């Protein structure tokens, strides 16, 4: 089932097309990565999904119904890139306040806060103020306030920035668990290694337009360059074949690019015939980082202001 569908969303500002005709859909329970360089329009897109902005054109279908910002925001948890909490407010009261704004009753909210605070080792924080917390600690608090009301859709904008590896892992595990319990997670970042690790499905936007849409594996396959790594005990002095070309030569390893019309078996066959002992043989798939750079490169990295004729 698809929890969220975006259909031809458009949002134009006076000087730029922040979101220009973007459509995609997100499966319930999946972890979805929204990628894009700075200023690609991610934040505007997320703000439309959270009901902060209204799209100029297009529609958002949430839970099989037209998105109703007034009521549906109760089922959404949004953690913006720039963290925000009241500095002078006590942490317990703050969590309670934010939970109640999401429509929880006082008792429900207290119960949930206790659960999460215990789970993440934050019980002693209750009477502290946010200004007493370190950046990583307030990040944790922000995460808790985002997921407290058990939203169907959780939107996390750069959730790991400022977290040490231990706490980042802690949050990552929670994200997996939330997804397992049925929450859908939109994860916006430009840290590709995290995307590869966490996301099932990604969309890449650049300059307000969608340029990639698919599963992590699918996209890697789509952008593979038929590169293979061959590890040999003894590399022959001369390697020459019609089936492939050597692109890189290093200690005990060759990187080969298979020519069109040939397969990996042709490479193996060649080395077997050469009597070289093959220790390892594997395909090199491009990292998302490489795909990302390749896709975004060549376009103007910083957005140019332009006159919009809508």
């Amino acid at each position, binding site marked *: 089932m698809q929890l969220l569908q975006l259909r031809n969303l458009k949002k134009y500002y006076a000087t730029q097309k922040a979101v220009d005709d973007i459509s995609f859909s997100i499966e319930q329970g999946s972890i979805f990565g929204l990628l894009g360089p700075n200023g690609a329009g991610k934040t505007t897109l997320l703000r439309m999904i959270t009901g902060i902005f209204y799209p100029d054109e297009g529609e958002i279908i949430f839970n099989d119904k037209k998105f109703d910002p007034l009521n549906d*925001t109760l089922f959404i948890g*949004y953690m*913006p890139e*720039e963290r*925000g*909490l009241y500095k002078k*407010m006590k942490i317990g009261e703050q969590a309670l*306040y934010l939970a*109640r*704004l999401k429509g929880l009753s006082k008792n429900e909210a207290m119960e949930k806060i206790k659960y999460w605070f215990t789970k993440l080792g934050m019980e002693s924080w209750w009477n502290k103020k946010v200004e007493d917390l370190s950046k990583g600690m307030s990040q944790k608090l922000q995460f808790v306030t985002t997921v407290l009301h058990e939203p169907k859709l959780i939107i996390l904008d750069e959730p790991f920035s400022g977290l040490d590896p231990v706490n980042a892992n802690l949050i990552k595990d929670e994200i997996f668990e939330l997804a397992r319990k049925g929450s859908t997670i939109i994860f916006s970042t430009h840290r590709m290694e995290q995307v590869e690790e966490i996301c099932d499905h990604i969309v890449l936007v650049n300059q307000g337009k969608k340029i990639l849409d698919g599963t992590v594996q699918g996209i890697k396959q789509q952008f593979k360059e038929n590169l293979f790594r061959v590890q040999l005990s003894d590399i022959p002095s001369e390697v020459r074949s019609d089936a492939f070309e050597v692109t890189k030569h290093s200690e005990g390893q060759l990187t080969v690019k298979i020519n069109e019309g040939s397969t990996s078996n042709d490479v193996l066959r060649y080395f077997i015939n050469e009597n070289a002992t093959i220790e390892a043989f594997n395909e090199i798939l491009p990292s998302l980082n490489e795909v990302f750079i390749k896709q975004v490169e060549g376009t103007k990295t910083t957005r140019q202001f332009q006159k919009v004729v809508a």
Partner: protein
Amino acid sequence: MNKILLIIKREYLVRVRNKTFILSTILTPLLFAGLITAVTFISIKKVDQEKIAVIDNSGMLEGKIENTKALTFEFPKGVDSTNYIQKGYTALLYTPGGNVQGYKLISKKQFGMVAEGQLEDKINETLENQLLKSKYNVDLKELEAERKKAGSVSIDQTYQEGSEVKKGNSKLAYGIGYGCGFLIYITLLIYGNMVMRGVSEEKTNRIAEVIISSVKPFQLMIGKIIGIGAVGLTQFFIWIILLVGLMTAATAVLSKDTLKQAQESTQQMPGGSMQAASGATGGFDAISETLGQANWVLIIGCFLFYFLFGYLFYASLFAAVGSTVNEDAQDAQSLQLPITMPIIVSIIIMINAITNPSGTLATWASLIPFCSPIVMMARIPFGVPGTVPYWQLILSMVLLVAGFLFTTWLSAKIYRTGILMYGKKAGWKEMWKWAFRSN
């Protein structure tokens, strides 16, 4: 609606529990009362006795000048400017050429203004007395007694209100009007600024985005404005209770005699301003008597109305400005100016209007929502419907409410865009564009 209540509650509690709020709320009336008490006690404190040796060549003073509380005159023999201190005098008064106009005073210390004034008065009085006696054979004491019998003139004002004839007291109305206008002026600035700082804090803290993903921007804005308004009302309420309590305590502790004494000693002070001050503060009995003449229900009712709607009128504008501010506090200052200007202009109009509460300026200014809270409050104590006809009061209130609805609507549009706009410095032109954009 439920969410607005939550926001109001938070805004209210955060501020009311704040230490500075508690301190300022309790300390301000105490400070005020303390100041009044201190002034009273200082003024009735015994004045140092000054013993003055007089070398009276003219013979005009000896035996005729009377001692006062502060000054004792003696006419010893054999005292001159070299030895008056040894003989126990603080000053030496003499006429160098026997000329009565040119008295000279030598002393080891500078005489205070009060003492010098009293000295001059005393000498003048004595000389005048003798002149009257010698030339017209009039005794000043007798004259004084006659004058007291006749009583001095004071105007007893009455005015017609409907069929009722009321006793008027323009001085009291002036005092109340001035106080009310000024109080509204100060609170508009203080609480307006509090709203602005609250909004810009939310924006720079980036909490606004989190909240706005749960509630509508308008709910957040109006919740904050109402919450802070409630803080203002709470503060007034506590002040009124404390002041009434302190007044009661003060009148119980300070006996009537002390008050009378205080009054006398302030009246003895020279200078017009002092005289005016004692005129206003003096006559404690008279004040408590005349205070009863004012229509307190009407005044307090109108005060609360004009405070509340004046605050609401300006608070949303302050919120709009707060929403456009980035980290730079300097921006706030310059953007704030167009909003604080009308408030400052109002107080200037008010000072003018209160001397002529039925004048054209006063009438018009009390109708226009930008200045009506301050100016109308200055006029109301002069009497409704005497000075302020009912139609003016009602029109002023209706216009203020309409004005508040308009500024809130306008500000909400600016606020909605401004609160999420980062990095860019917004000018008035930009805010104007945000306000009149279709969505």
